[in-house]
């Protein structure tokens, strides 16, 4: 054997080896299609458990188009890489998951592979669902397979090359998908462990509240440090929380359960749908989440406790702090905001004191701008907070003046920069949002009312 031929065969060997390795990473077999199982084949208790788990997983939020049929997919999910449309997870045999076996469903949850063997984009948070137990996957499967089947073909994603090639996702998984499942911490209580299992797994809180890296994966070095979703900021929910008063277990529980808390304000934007779902599940599970999250927040520092005491004093007897800010902002506040936000009426009927609301102390003005523009719609048939939107009566400049004033008067944080741009962006995205969502969307809603006109 001559030397060049020897080298050539090594090169060929490497090439073949590389192709085989790549194939092994990328290729996944299809799992055979099944005849759609009859709804009666699933036990009622199992379906009921699956219903609660689906609510904890907030599945309906992404998999339902505003005003569309439940779980039929089609919701555009904007990402930095393009728009991805959620899939139909009703048991429709042709366009949904009707022909998926439980094993195929579990594989999708665990490793982000669909029944046919295609890689799913990680907008579907399987990086959290690896933690879901077989038992819970079985209940979720039973719940979804007993929903009304909806014929709704998937919409094509809007991604550019090479991201529109699904094999690329296999590389992403090699880098970022941890395969291990949740391991209980025996040093902690059963309730803490239950909360950790839900938060890190099905509830996928980190999907919004943890910042993402350039490739769209959660930064494991900064868990719960705050992230972005749909032009809202998902606040840091760890020691870096911008909340003026520190959270405790009971406040978290009550907020997650009813959608607002007198010390913190109202869940809005994408979080409104989350609390709407949590209002319908077992209180013990929501409490477990609150217990675990309390430990993620960590005990407040002495400094923080002192600031909280000062803030409560300040609210009880305002010292007439008059900051050097835009007088226009002050006038707008007096006429448009103070009648609700500066009274003794507690939420939900009175507005929360703006010194307590996280939006005004947040790192950027996005959430505050969103809420001033579109307000909070009341929830049909429930006691719930309400606020008119001011999109029609205020210009971007006037809203910027108002936000500037609120920041100076109601937080001890430095002034925001680029407020006007934030308001412009908020107006653009909220306009789109409002046009596509006929139902209540900014307040905790009874999920039973989701499909009403």
């Amino acid at each position, binding site marked *: 054997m001559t030397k060049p031929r020897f080298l050539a065969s090594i090169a060929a060997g490497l090439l073949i080896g590389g192709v085989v390795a790549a194939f092994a990473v990328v290729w996944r077999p299809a799992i055979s299609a099944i005849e759609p199982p009859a709804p009666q084949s699933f036990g009622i208790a199992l379906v009921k458990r699956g219903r609660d788990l689906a609510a904890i997983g907030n599945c309906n939020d992404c998999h339902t188009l505003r005003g569309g049929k439940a779980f039929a997919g089609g919701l555009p999910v904007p990402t930095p890489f393009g728009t991805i449309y959620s899939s139909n997870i009703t048991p429709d045999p042709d366009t949904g998951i009707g022909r998926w076996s439980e094993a195929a469903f579990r594989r999708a949850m665990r490793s982000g592979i669909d029944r046919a063997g295609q890689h799913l984009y990680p907008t579907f948070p399987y990086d959290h669902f690896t933690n879901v137990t077989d038992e819970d996957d079985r209940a979720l499967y039973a719940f979804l397979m007993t929903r009304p089947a909806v014929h709704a073909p998937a919409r094509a994603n809007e991604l550019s090359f090479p991201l529109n090639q699904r094999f690329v996702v296999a590389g992403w998984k090699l880098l970022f998908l941890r395969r291990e499942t949740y391991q209980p911490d025996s040093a902690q209580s059963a309730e803490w462990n239950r909360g950790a299992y839900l938060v890190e797994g099905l509830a996928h809180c980190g999907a919004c509240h943890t910042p993402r890296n350039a490739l769209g994966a959660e930064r494991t070095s900064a868990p719960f440090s705050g992230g972005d979703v749909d032009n809202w900021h998902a606040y840091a929910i760890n020691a870096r929380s911008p909340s003026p008063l520190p959270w405790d277990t009971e406040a978290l529980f009550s907020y997650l359960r009813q959608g607002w808390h007198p010390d913190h304000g109202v869940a809005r934007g994408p979080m409104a749908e989350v609390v709407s779902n949590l209002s319908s599940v077992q209180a013990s599970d929501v409490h477990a989440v609150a217990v675990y999250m309390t430990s993620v927040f960590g005990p407040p520092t002495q400094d923080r406790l002192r600031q909280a005491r000062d803030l409560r004093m300040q609210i009880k007897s305002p010292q007439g702090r008059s900051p050097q800010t835009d007088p226009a902002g*002050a*006038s707008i506040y007096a*006429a*448009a905001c103070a*009648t*609700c936000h500066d009274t003794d009426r507690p939420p939900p009927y009175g507005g929360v004191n703006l010194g307590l609301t996280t939006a005004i102390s947040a790192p950027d003005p996005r959430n505050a701008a969103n809420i001033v523009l579109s307000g909070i*719609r009341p929830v049909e048939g429930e006691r719930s907070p309400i606020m008119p939107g001011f999109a029609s*009566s205020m210009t971007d400049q006037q809203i910027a003046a108002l936000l500037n004033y609120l920041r100076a008067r109601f937080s001890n944080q430095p002034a925001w920069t680029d407020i006007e741009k934030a308001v412009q962006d908020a107006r653009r995205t909220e306009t789109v949002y409002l046009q596509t969502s*006929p139902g209540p969307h900014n307040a905790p809603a009874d999920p039973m009312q989701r499909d009403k*006109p």
Partner: protein
Amino acid sequence: MMNLKVNGHDHQIDAEPDTPLLYVLREDLKLNAAKFGCGLGQCGSCTVIVDGKAVLSCVTPLLLLEGKQVTTLEGLGTISTPAPIQRAFMEEQAAQCGYCIAGMMMRAQALLQKNPKPTDAQIRAELEPHLCRCGTHMRILRAVHRAAHLMDTAELSPAIPGSAR
């Protein structure tokens, strides 16, 4: 002193910049169609049109209205020559106590100006911020459809001061 344009007329208003528009309309200009309901922007009875958009006048301070056109119900039509929206509400007998109706008409008018043929669902969604305690909702819905028809057939489209743009 501030200049406020209401129903096509200029008015010099002597009031603080944080005075709600509703107070100026009712107390200074004696235009009483817009009603004080809750004073919190939660019931809709104070609704007027500002530059073509429905606005809650009880939570709109005067300083936001610099250079803008305010239209109240009085600016749409009169008792002898009612505007299509007013005629439609009368013909459908949509008012019972009538307290909410001026606000309802103003928001419906703003809707019809940008969408001349709204569906039932669009009218319901648009009028959602308005409360009516008498319960004439179905008549109000019919009245808005009738107004759309009247405006469309243009049999009596009087010039609408302040909203022609």
